[in-house]
């Protein structure tokens, strides 16, 4: 494989210096204080880190090579180590919250059934939501895809003569390529979530659904801010950087013509919707300008407010290991003199709903717990997936948008199943990853080499005589076996690992010599 030559071929590069000593599991700054925030722990850096590795190289519609981008992330040991430890910290906090709730597994089962029920009756609940929301004085719009969403929002903004838009973080708008579209029509978009603003200023996609800049070190942020908002490039103090961003963004927020939010849950019986943040930035986006537009994926509907209670208890505990987000804001309708619009977006959701093996991925509440626990994601960085959704949930959602471009993603998993166990709505993520592999084979979206290897392996392993001849002696076994056990030859196995020591004889030969009489 060519990825070894991308910079990670030398084992030494992959070994962070600290890996030779104890891993720093409970970091503290020199004065003994631990900087800790709901969205992760920030640690002082001991050495001058390498430059931030960038994400997957995108070549039009060609399949994204996640492995190549992941290898470059691992070749940046300060970044990889911080990323792995920071997300593992979130996973541990999630575990602590879970242990504080005796009925945790019942809650997960309940949340799963609420979402499944809603999806099965989605048409009815959407109509109910539309009727109630309209009665509350909200303007409803329906968008079948990303382009229609962008056009609708553009039209609303044009109708109001709006030239600038402040918005809170929304994965749906990422799906829609919303910022790029708005730039093309000359409307300024200002992200109000700190992490998302960092990513916007760096012209990079979010790498995580909850903590969009989690792959960046404080020094990376200092570099971005120095270039974009004029901070001191040598000052990477997190308080300094956060304050500088606040000072730079507040005037833009106060002067904005319109505000936009996403939505965590939309309640059919009330026609209201809920947005959860830790920074209060959705409230600024919704309440400062007179015009509030909310982009809502059609799978965000839940039937009643009582269901919200179940899902809210799970959301932030799963996401960040905190009992609840700092802000859980309910929006019912426009305030006096204001206007509120909702764009309900399909963008592939109704066709996903029709996929027997994959429709339950629509239960996802975008908590990111599967990403935090995923050992592959933690070591690869979210941008290595080259798609809107990264990590385990990305592996099963992204191919529904483009099975060719994202055909490698379902193979970026060890199928370890930790993702399914942390999922608050019990999506069988790792089973869907395997199901996607089968689907991609059916769609002929796997490489010829893999196809040929699998066919050869299947033929050899189903013919005992040929199989035994192929591994007749242990030496021959070592030469041949990995070719059908791991298919890619010893060179790839051995790039970063020692090959197994060949035994003197196979079990088969031992049995023949020692136990044949008993058979």
């Amino acid at each position, binding site marked *: 494989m060519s990825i070894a030559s991308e910079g990670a071929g030398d084992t030494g590069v992959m070994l962070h210096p600290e*890996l030779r000593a104890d891993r720093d599991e409970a970091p503290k700054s020199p004065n003994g204080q631990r900087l800790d925030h709901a969205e992760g722990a920030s640690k002082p850096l001991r050495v001058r880190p390498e430059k931030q590795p960038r994400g997957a190289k995108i070549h039009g519609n060609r399949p994204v090579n996640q492995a190549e981008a992941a290898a470059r992330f691992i070749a940046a040991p300060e970044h990889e180590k911080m990323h792995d430890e920071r997300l593992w910290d979130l996973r541990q906090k999630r575990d602590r919250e879970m242990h504080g709730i005796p009925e945790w597994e019942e809650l997960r089962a309940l949340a799963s059934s609420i979402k499944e029920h809603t999806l099965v009756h989605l048409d009815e609940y959407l109509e109910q939501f539309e009727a109630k929301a309209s009665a509350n004085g909200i303007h409803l719009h329906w968008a079948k895809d990303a382009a229609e969403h962008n056009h609708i929002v553009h039209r609303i903004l044009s109708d109001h003569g709006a030239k600038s838009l402040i918005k809170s973080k929304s994965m749906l708008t990422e799906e829609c390529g919303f910022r790029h579209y708005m730039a093309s029509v000359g409307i300024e978009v200002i992200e109000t979530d700190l992490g998302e603003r960092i990513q916007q200023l760096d012209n990079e996609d979010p790498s995580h659904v909850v903590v969009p800049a989690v792959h960046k070190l404080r020094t990376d942020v200092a570099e971005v801010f120095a270039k974009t908002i004029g901070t001191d490039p040598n000052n990477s103090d997190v308080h300094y950087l956060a304050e500088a961003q606040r000072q730079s963004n507040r005037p833009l927020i106060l002067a904005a013509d319109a505000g936009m939010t996403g939505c965590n849950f939309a309640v059919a019986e009330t026609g209201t919707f809920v947005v959860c943040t830790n920074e209060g930035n959705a409230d600024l986006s919704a309440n400062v300008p007179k015009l509030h537009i909310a982009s809502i994926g059609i799978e965000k509907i839940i039937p009643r407010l009582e269901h919200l209670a179940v899902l809210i208890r799970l959301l932030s505990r799963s996401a960040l290991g905190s009992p609840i987000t700092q802000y859980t804001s309910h929006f019912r309708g426009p305030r006096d003199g204001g206007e509120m619009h909702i764009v309900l977006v399909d963008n592939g959701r109704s066709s996903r709903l029709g996929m027997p093996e994959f429709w339950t991925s629509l239960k996802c509440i975008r908590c990111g717990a599967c990403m935090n626990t995923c050992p592959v994601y933690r070591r690869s960085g979210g941008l290595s997936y080259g798609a809107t959704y990264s990590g385990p949930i990305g592996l099963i959602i992204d191919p529904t948008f483009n099975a060719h471009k994202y055909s490698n993603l379902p193979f970026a998993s060890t199928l370890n199943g930790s993702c399914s166990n942390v999922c608050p709505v019990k999506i069988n993520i790792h089973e869907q990853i395997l199901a996607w592999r089968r689907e991609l084979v059916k769609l002929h979206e796997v490489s010829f080499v893999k196809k040929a290897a699998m066919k050869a392996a299947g033929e050899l392993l189903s013919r005992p005589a040929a199989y035994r001849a192929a591994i007749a002696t242990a030496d021959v076994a070592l030469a041949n076996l990995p070719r059908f056990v791991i298919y*890619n030859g010893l060179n790839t*196995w051995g790039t970063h690992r020692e090959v197994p020591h060949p035994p003197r004889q196979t079990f088969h030969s031992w049995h023949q010599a020692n136990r044949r009489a008993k058979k």
Partner: protein
Amino acid sequence: MRIGLFVPCFIDALFPEVGVATLELLERFGHEVVYPRDQTCCGQPMADNGFNADSAATEALFVRNFSGFDYVVAPEGSCVHHVRDNFDALEQTAEVKEVRARTYELVEFLHDIVKPDALPWAKFPHRVGLHNKCVTLRRLKHAKPSELHEPFYSKPLDLLSKVEGIEFVTPARPDECCGFGGTFSVFEEVVSAKMGYDKVRDHARAGAEYVVSADSSCIMHQQGCAERIGVPIKFIHIAQILNGASA
């Protein structure tokens, strides 16, 4: 009981001592253990990559080899997981269903069916870290995974605690995947190796002399990683310790 012994292909070729220990251990409990000589593989490598059609003939061969036993036992959880949960390239005849239902992984077979009170022949005076393979942990349910809110249990620890002199040490991330993942280990070999390095370092920091596992596939990967970065841990299959291996 008449037991069909399934020795997965890579154990046959690379870890024959695991097959021998499994055979001897099952015989210690007085069972008749038969090794069908035409066995090769369960079909998992093809099926795990989505190539079910290519695994059908291998799965059919497995059924021919292992039909008619009281139990089929294998010292590798992922192969058993395949047979039990994903073995669907074949028409599901009564015979196929029967073989699938009677196939057990060694630890669960000992723990759930044999239920030994003691293992008087087993002594292992070493500090040992347990590695549960992910599918063995989460699909065969060998133990409580850290993500779930349920009472603690561990079938491999139950069995190992009957071994004289054994001492357990626990890594900081007890059930973090080691990165083997079948063909993942070659298709994503950089990530796979990094996960393996982190795993063996974690065991070493916990003070393990040996890592014991019910799965040789993870051992093969971790051993290769440990040797490459010079982490001085030894690796051993649980069948060997339970069968009385001294080191």
